[in-house]
């Protein structure tokens, strides 16, 4: 006897579709689909699109800074008259003028872009990995593991960030490696919390229970059901960490704890500040300031748009 069933709904391909063909069709899927979807959503937001373009331009400049820089950023340049080209206003020779030490501002700016990306990206990758791992462990296994990790982040969250960074870099020595290390130590904690909260929501999903009831191992559940939801969030946190790291490096450099061998935007400002040129040499002060603002803000704007699109509670009906 035929049984009542809801209709298949408006036909799709009609009843002639071959089961095996359809089955074979379901075999092909891309693991990158969430990212592609996410990117598509981002591109639709004009602010995010502009942000993405700005980031891409900075990235290109960073990659090509060696080619683009007209002078050696550390070289004290002479004027045609043979004197030190000190605090020259922008000109055809020096598009962005020179510093109090006779360095070419544009060249320093370009090299600074590279430093920003080196610090930002390497710190973000490590932060991403650590936060994801700890967040997964804490959220998925719960109980004592969670208790210990979360209490640790509680304490870590009460420690003032920049002061500890200042002290740590002062003691360990001012180098890019140590700055990256300090950034990682500072930002794993927020990331771990964010990942953990996603895991906590995900692991309570009924389909995870169903997979458990079907005998799925922890690894299987993590891989198939939890990671796909964690990765976009972890990726967002990594993106934001790039900004945090650039910001932290700039702050440390600004107060004189930058790597003496890597001219960063923060260091340029530090030099301008300590030389007392802040109020006079606008060509020295503005470019690194604006670069910092545009790069960091662009990352924030993109991150924000991503969050706006992916947080179901913020989405418009």
């Amino acid at each position, binding site marked *: 006897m035929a049984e*009542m069933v809801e209709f*298949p709904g408006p036909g799709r391909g009609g009843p002639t579709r071959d089961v095996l063909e359809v089955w074979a069709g379901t075999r092909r899927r891309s693991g990158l689909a969430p990212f592609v979807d996410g990117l598509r959503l981002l591109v639709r937001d004009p602010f995010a699109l502009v942000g993405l373009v700005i980031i891409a331009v900075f990235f290109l400049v960073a990659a090509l800074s060696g080619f683009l820089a007209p002078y050696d950023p550390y070289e004290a340049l002479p004027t045609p008259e043979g004197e030190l080209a000190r605090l020259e206003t922008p000109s055809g020779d020096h598009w962005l003028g020179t510093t109090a030490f006779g360095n070419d501002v544009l060249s320093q700016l370009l090299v600074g872009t590279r430093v920003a990306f080196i610090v930002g990206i390497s710190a973000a990758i490590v932060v991403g990995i650590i936060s994801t791992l700890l967040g997964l462990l804490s959220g998925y296994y719960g109980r004592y593991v969670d208790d210990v990790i979360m209490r640790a982040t509680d304490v870590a969250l009460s420690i003032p960030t920049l002061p500890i960074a200042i002290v740590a870099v002062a003691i360990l020595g001012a180098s890019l490696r140590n700055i990256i290390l300090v950034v990682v130590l500072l930002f794993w904690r927020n990331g771990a919390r964010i990942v953990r909260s996603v895991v906590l929501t995900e692991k309570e999903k009924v389909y995870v229970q169903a997979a458990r009831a079907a005998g799925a191992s922890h690894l299987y559940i993590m891989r198939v059901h939890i990671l796909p939801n964690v990765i976009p969030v972890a990726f967002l946190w990594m993106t934001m960490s790039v900004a945090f790291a650039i910001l932290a490096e700039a702050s440390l450099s600004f107060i004189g704890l930058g790597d003496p061998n890597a001219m960063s935007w923060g260091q340029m400002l530090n030099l301008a500040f300590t030389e007392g040129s802040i109020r006079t040499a606008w060509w020295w002060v503005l470019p690194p300031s604006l670069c910092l603002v545009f790069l960091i803000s662009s990352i924030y704007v993109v991150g924000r748009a991503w969050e706006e699109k992916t947080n179901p509670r913020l989405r418009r009906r």
Partner: protein
Amino acid sequence: MPAQPTATASAAPISDRPPVSLRVSGLRVGYRVEQGHLRAVDGVDLEVNPGESLGLVGESGCGKSTVGKAILRLLPEDARVEGRVLLDGDDVLRMSARQLRQIRWTKLALVTQSAMNALDPVYRIGDQIAESIVAHEDLDRRQAWRRAEELFTLVGIPQERLRDYPHQFSGGMRQRAVIAMALSLNAGLLLADEPTTALDSIMQDQVLAQIQRLQRELSRSMILVTHDIAVVAETCEKVAVMYAGRITESGPTAAVLATPYHPYTMGLRNAFPTIDGDRRELISIPGNLPNLLDPPTGCRFASRCPFSTDHCREVDPPLIEVGPGHLSACHYPDQAAAFRDRAAQRSTWTTDPGGG
């Protein structure tokens, strides 16, 4: 402590407002969504006379809650609402924000489903009740609290619990608190939107009994929006059955449920499990709701109706009077008796999924 008011005396301090009549005509609600224009409600007429209770019943997606919210003008900004909602002759849909504020809660009060969120979690329940009173009457907070105490007595919650926060109440008590709040200004019309859906059966029964008792004692008009026809059968004098944004059948509850004229109502009855009497066969209605982005022409139920004809799929059936106050939107009212017999047999509803 104020003197314990008795059940009858308690109504006295509440302003004496007459029950309200409601007449909804040609109500349409649409949303612009990514895929097009979603017609959530597509031409609904309703009538509630003073002191009457109407059950608005239907399944998920039929538009019953949207109708309720449209009456109170609580729909989101992007909803497009057409038609008339006459409350004692005044059109709610054309009121200014100020007029709307004035009639809300004095003429039209809402009892929502209080699963968890119907009450603001950070305010004391007493303050939330007092808020509605102070907004409309020239009373200070203390006087408003006195009224709230009386209302709590009315719904059977100890007065001192007014000082509690919502999370300290159980589901049933929250529901009663919401009812007390709806009664705070003795509004002429109560709109109860799935008021017992989240409750266990025993609690649901008590709350419904209470709603019904208060509605009758205070002679309020009421619209009860629910998916549960049994709840309507026991609580409301009149019923309107909705399907896919339209009313398919309406009339006195007893007549509609005992002698349905619309095949959808027949199907609903057959699908409803009961514990009284002998065990009957349960028969489900095959098929799905039509797509409201692009509704089919003709009767919306035609694709699932075992009796549908080509005529049904082409021509919209109007609501026809089939008995005193009993309307049905089916082209074949004269065959209703035969339909009822056939609808009771499962073979009538059986379809072959492949050939559907």
